[in-house]
């Protein structure tokens, strides 16, 4: 296999992170499991949110995992892509909204 920082096989080893710190690792996975249970939001809605966040944080493991998970949960391609656009809008908007600060500064510096 080519040397790369990201290997899809590594996702299967995620649970091994408890090897170096069992107590905290276990707490994380227990919490993770609880987060994705059906609650005020459905498991399907949570999966779409996770897919969007996976793109926002640009995690290839999470993108693989939640692409498959949303497919399994019956999401359509359109719904999945719209979720990614939500992440994109927030990321893009987060840059753009800072331009108000730029405008403020321009106003202050300009005659």
């Amino acid at each position, binding site marked *: 296999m080519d040397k790369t920082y990201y290997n899809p096989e590594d996702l299967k080893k995620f649970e091994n992170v408890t090897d170096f710190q069992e107590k905290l690792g276990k707490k994380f996975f227990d919490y993770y499991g609880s987060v994705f249970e059906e609650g005020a939001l459905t498991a399907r809605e949570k999966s779409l949110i996770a897919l969007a966040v996976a793109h926002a944080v640009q995690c290839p493991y999470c993108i693989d995992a939640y692409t498959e998970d949303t*497919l*399994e949960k019956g999401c359509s391609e359109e719904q999945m892509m719209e979720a990614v656009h939500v992440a994109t809008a927030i990321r893009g908007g987060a840059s753009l909204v800072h331009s108000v600060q730029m405008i403020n500064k321009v106003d202050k510096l300009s005659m």
Partner: protein
Amino acid sequence: MKSLIAQSHSLSDPAVQLDVINNHNEKVKSLDKFENKLEEIGLLPLKPTGIEIFQINVGYMCNMTCKHCHVDAGPDRKEIMTKETLQYCLDALKGTDIETVDLTGGAPEMNPHFRWFVDEVSKLGKHIIVRSNLTILDTRKFENLPQFMADHGVEITCSLPFYSKRRTDIQRGEGTYDKSMKVLKMLNKIGYGKEDSGLQLNLVYNPVGAFLPGDQESLKKQYKERLWKDQDIVFNDLFTITNLPISRYLNFLMQSGNLEEYMEKLINAFNPSAAKGVMCRNTISIGWDGSLYDCDFNQMLQMKTNHGAPDHIKDWNLEKLNNREIVTDQHCFGCTAGAGSSCGGAVT
């Protein structure tokens, strides 16, 4: 598209399919064996709980050639159950209290003796399920068949792999979704799928790709919402079915480089509760030539009933069949993954 057998494709040979899912490469070879998993949970040998469903594959001929078809069915398949063999089935059924007769194919409607047989089974007081691909009912030759089935109280279980056009047509061929919607509306019109009509209409979901089905109830809710909102269509139940790694679906897995991962996924999702409820424990499958199998998948792999049980409908013996040992192999992981899978959907 031609069937694998018409293409003389190596995967049309059941022995090759079994070899692939057992020995394709070192990774596949190293995976847990189904028999070992059954042994771990005390289910080996796998025994029937008693035959309740008499599932007859009346022929492999079909008007469609779907990409995932485990039967490798299509217009070029000529295997059709004869009236003589159908009569053997009736003779076998007469002496039993088996309640359900499940007709599958191919497109079961294409068997030339279909109406006669439904009529005869109906006279025996059995409940009849017909597994329809829907599109066959959109042809002139079969357009009055829905009313015939309604008159006989036939339950219709039909394929609709997704609620959207795109994914349905990818798997089943361009135009399938539109035809399916047209036929579902027609079935609704004569009462199928409507509350209190007594005419049961079920849809079958199966993943369009190398992934497992999600929660059946959640998918049913989504289908109900979308089909009602987009198409004014109603139905009674939705069954999620896992694709088993055989025939055309196996071909897809190999061509797309998904075989190892999919097998691993099925095995990692092995669920002991699902194993206890697998359909082969309450079903017998009859092939077009009268051969007996533990299920329709074993039929396609030509794995007949074994261990002293009769393997042809002419030699029907309910007691021996109820005490048989079920024949299994690696494909059986498809029925035990997650919530389990059967012709009636999830089993847990």
